[in-house]
């Protein structure tokens, strides 16, 4: 165990990524070699990190190690406590599988773009994410944080001949940089109190900070890390950036990168700041509720498969924040047990979302690879052509829709239970916010299911709607292997949720300020066994294996009974009933049509718009030839927040550039006025 938790192993993992990055870059134009080196070393690094973090997580002792740099205030100090180990575990697990996927998936870039560059940034990206969650010095953290942004930026614009990728990349880079500005402000505020960038010193230094400062740190951190996590209204980069990246990178970005923002929010609110204020928790709850509800609504209106998935990331970040927000509220009231419960819910959902979102992105990658389009309306019937991909995608869809017995259901159940506790015992405002959060989570679950009926149904079921879809082929074995592994993880995490809850309970207990669990198997808020999870003295109990077994048994029994009853009956295969006309794929429901009713109901929130174009046969416009209706959403964030900001900036810039009028006399006048002005100021002062 000691060797497994030693810094050496950690450094070995980093070395693997470094070698992978360099190796891929140096191999440059030799596509296959670069891909193999880049992906295999990423696999190796991720596997080592997985072992290391798993060992730390199970052993529970914090591993700290540091190296000095030649720069003042910066030290390469790492601290892997259980929380960090948990995130490393999630990151490396997802990275491991996406790297396997990459090994096969990257092939279609051969000869088009440099594989070496992809491998290089891919490895840097994974390594930087691991560093982000283990760094223990604010400046060091900022450096790796920005490297993470940088690497992901280059991965987003990897397909650099696509103008859309470049645009998405720029938006992403600017948004994440803006977020970093807020993060820097947060750390500078901490430095003011602590005089150091070391996390331990900050923790000590903040103990005496004024409530004002603490709240300022919280707000800046929420905005800064929220921008990375994709909370609404800071999410605008997410739906364009994630789709632009290669799919295995999208899986990493959506699955784990945005979670680093969550990690730091937990670290700062529950780790660095001395106490939690009630309104912080409520703010996080509101942000979470809004993000989850709006995220899923936007997803519903999407018909670009990857954008749809990206919007679901926003939704799931919202759900995670609901857990975290409840934890913060409980923590502010000193209810550490409940806080641990909320945090455990957030962590569990973090992990679950990583698995199913990664799976869905990989599935989307396979579908896009087979059909060469991201437009859902062009798919259809793929389940017959790509049966395995369809199965994996279905499992992912069911998990993300929180359907039992998969893992997504369990973490939402935990989140629900945590939120339930806030309805009682607080003042009326808090109570109402909790109730509405529960409502938001409930609606989110329903809407997510609706959205994935659409995503899965339109993509894989019925008849192909385009030539490309009817000629699709099942993807290569490596791709399916990675997806199968994710699908297994999803089922496994659902089935073994009791045991996972126990571990996460300990992680959350650490952060919520609980003593280590006294008896093995007991979580802070109850007990968690393989068979049952029981919370809050029996307030709620559940057994995921039983749910699983129940469904399977009932299914088997029903199938058996009905098979026996109807043995003699025949089955004929015939065309779908066509109401007397020839059915064409155009008669099937479209993705837009599928979700239009919900969008229409929510029009106050969503601002849908539609453009109609009709082409006529004749000049008098009596006989229409073709008609197209384009239904979409007006982007209210752009039109009400970002566009005005842009306009203001450009207007000021317009004034500024008039300073540089080209007239030398004006220039001399500036100097003259500055001189006179300063002299006058001196005069005024004395």
């Amino acid at each position, binding site marked *: 165990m000691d060797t497994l938790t030693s810094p050496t192993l950690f450094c070995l993992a980093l070395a693997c990524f470094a070698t992978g990055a360099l190796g891929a870059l140096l191999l440059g134009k030799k596509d296959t070699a670069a891909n193999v080196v880049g992906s295999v070393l990423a696999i190796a690094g991720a596997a080592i990190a997985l072992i290391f973090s798993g060992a730390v997580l199970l052993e529970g002792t914090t591993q700290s190690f540091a190296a000095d740099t030649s720069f003042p205030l910066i030290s390469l100090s790492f601290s892997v406590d259980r929380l960090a180990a948990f995130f490393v575990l999630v990151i490396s697990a997802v990275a491991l599988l996406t790297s396997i996927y990459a090994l096969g998936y990257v092939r279609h870039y051969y000869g088009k773009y440099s594989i070496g560059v992809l491998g290089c940034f891919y490895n840097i990206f994974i390594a930087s994410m691991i560093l982000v969650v283990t760094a223990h010095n604010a400046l060091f953290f900022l450096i790796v944080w920005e490297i993470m942004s940088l690497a992901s930026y280059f991965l987003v614009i990897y397909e650099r001949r696509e103008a859309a990728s470049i645009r998405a990349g720029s938006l992403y880079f600017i948004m994440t940089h803006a977020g970093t500005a807020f993060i820097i402000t947060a750390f500078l505020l901490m430095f003011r109190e602590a005089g150091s960038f070391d996390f331990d010193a900050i923790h000590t230094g903040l103990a005496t900070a004024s409530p004002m400062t603490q709240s300022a740190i919280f707000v800046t951190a929420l905005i800064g890390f929220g921008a990375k996590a994709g909370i609404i209204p800071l999410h605008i980069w997410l739906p364009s950036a994630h789709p632009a990246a290669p799919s295995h990178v999208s899986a990493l970005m959506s699955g784990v990168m945005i979670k680093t923002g969550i990690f730091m929010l937990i670290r700062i609110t529950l780790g660095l700041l001395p106490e939690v204020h009630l309104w912080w928790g409520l703010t996080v709850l509101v942000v979470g509720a809004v993000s989850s509800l709006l995220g899923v609504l936007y997803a519903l209106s999407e018909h670009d498969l990857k954008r749809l998935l990206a919007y679901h990331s926003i939704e799931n970040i919202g759900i995670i924040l609901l857990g975290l927000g409840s934890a913060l509220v409980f923590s502010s009231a000193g209810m550490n047990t409940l806080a641990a419960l909320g945090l455990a819910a957030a962590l569990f959902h973090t992990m679950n979302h990583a698995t199913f979102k990664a799976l869905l992105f990989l599935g989307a990658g396979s579908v896009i690879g087979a059909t060469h389009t991201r437009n859902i309306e062009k798919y259809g019937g793929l389940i017959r052509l790509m049966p395995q991909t369809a199965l994996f995608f279905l499992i992912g869809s069911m998990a993300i829709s929180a359907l039992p017995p998969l893992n997504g259901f369990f973490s939402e159940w935990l989140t629900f239970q945590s939120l339930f506790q806030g309805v009682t015992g607080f003042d009326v405002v808090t109570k109402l916010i909790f109730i509405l959060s529960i409502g938001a989570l409930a609606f989110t679950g329903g809407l997510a299911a609706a959205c994935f009926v659409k995503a899965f149904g339109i993509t894989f079921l019925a008849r192909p709607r385009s030539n490309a879809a009817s000629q699709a082929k099942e993807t290569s074995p490596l791709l399916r292997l990675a997806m199968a592994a994710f699908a297994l993880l999803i089922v496994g995490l659902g089935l073994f949720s009791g045991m996972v809850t126990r571990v996460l309970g300990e992680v959350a207990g650490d952060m919520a300020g609980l003593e280590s669990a006294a008896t093995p198997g007991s979580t802070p808020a109850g007990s968690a066994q393989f068979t049952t999870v029981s919370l809050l003295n029996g307030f709620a109990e559940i057994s995921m294996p039983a749910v699983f077994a129940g469904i399977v048994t009932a299914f088997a029994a029903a199938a058996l009974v009905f098979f026996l009853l109807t043995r003699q009956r025949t089955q004929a295969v015939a065309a779908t009933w066509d109401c007397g006309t020839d059915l064409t794929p155009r008669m099937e429901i479209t993705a837009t049509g599928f979700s239009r009713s919900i969008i229409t109901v929510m029009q106050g929130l969503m601002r849908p718009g539609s453009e109609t174009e009709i082409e006529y046969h004749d000049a008098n416009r009596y006989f229409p030839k073709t008609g197209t209706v384009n239904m979409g959403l007006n982007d209210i964030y752009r039109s009400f927040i970002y566009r005005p900001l842009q306009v203001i900036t450009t207007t000021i810039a317009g004034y500024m550039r008039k300073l*540089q009028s080209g007239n030398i*006399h004006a220039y001399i006048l500036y100097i003259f006025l500055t001189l006179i002005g300063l002299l006058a100021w001196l*005069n005024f002062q004395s």
Partner: protein
Amino acid sequence: MAHFNSQTLLVFATIIFAASVFLHLTKKNTSAIRLYIVQSAAIAALLLASVEEFSPLLIVAIAATVAVKIFIAPYFFVNLTRRLDLKFSASTYMNTPMTLLVIAGLLALTQSDFFAPLSSLGRPGDRLLQLAFGTILISFLLSINRKGALSQILGILSLENGIVAFALFAGLEQSPGFQLGITFNILIWVVIATVFASMIFRKFGTLDVTRMRKLKD
């Protein structure tokens, strides 16, 4: 200022100051150059007057200054105006009354209490430093107000004269070596500025520097 009494000094200071004011008023290039010569001559006289004991290097330095300011620089300018056939350089941003008004304002500023620390550098009671400082500001104004390249050059040189006058009145003699260095600098500057002025005329067909407005954002 061993050799002049305060009355004489005031006369020279006034000449220097007045020259800078008249530079604003004159329309003719030749008279502007002449005004500069007059101003430089006054400076030269002050320089001579400030010398307490002569050394060979000092003589060379003063001679160089006189040569550059009274002879070489004007020669270049006169040559320039002849060659380019430029008689007038009248165009300004502010009209004459307005210019005078601004000059009066600047003058009031230099006379205010605020410049007490500056004027305290000189002998108590006299107004020499104020006049010198006024010259500086008014020359500065010249290069803002006048559109012609030559006027700008003269404005800068007059500004330099003002600074020298200020230094002399405040009793800040420089070692002759530095003096020479500065003079050499000015000489080169005058040469370059003149060359540029003629090149500008060749490219733009005028010395009106407001025509050069291509470089902007």
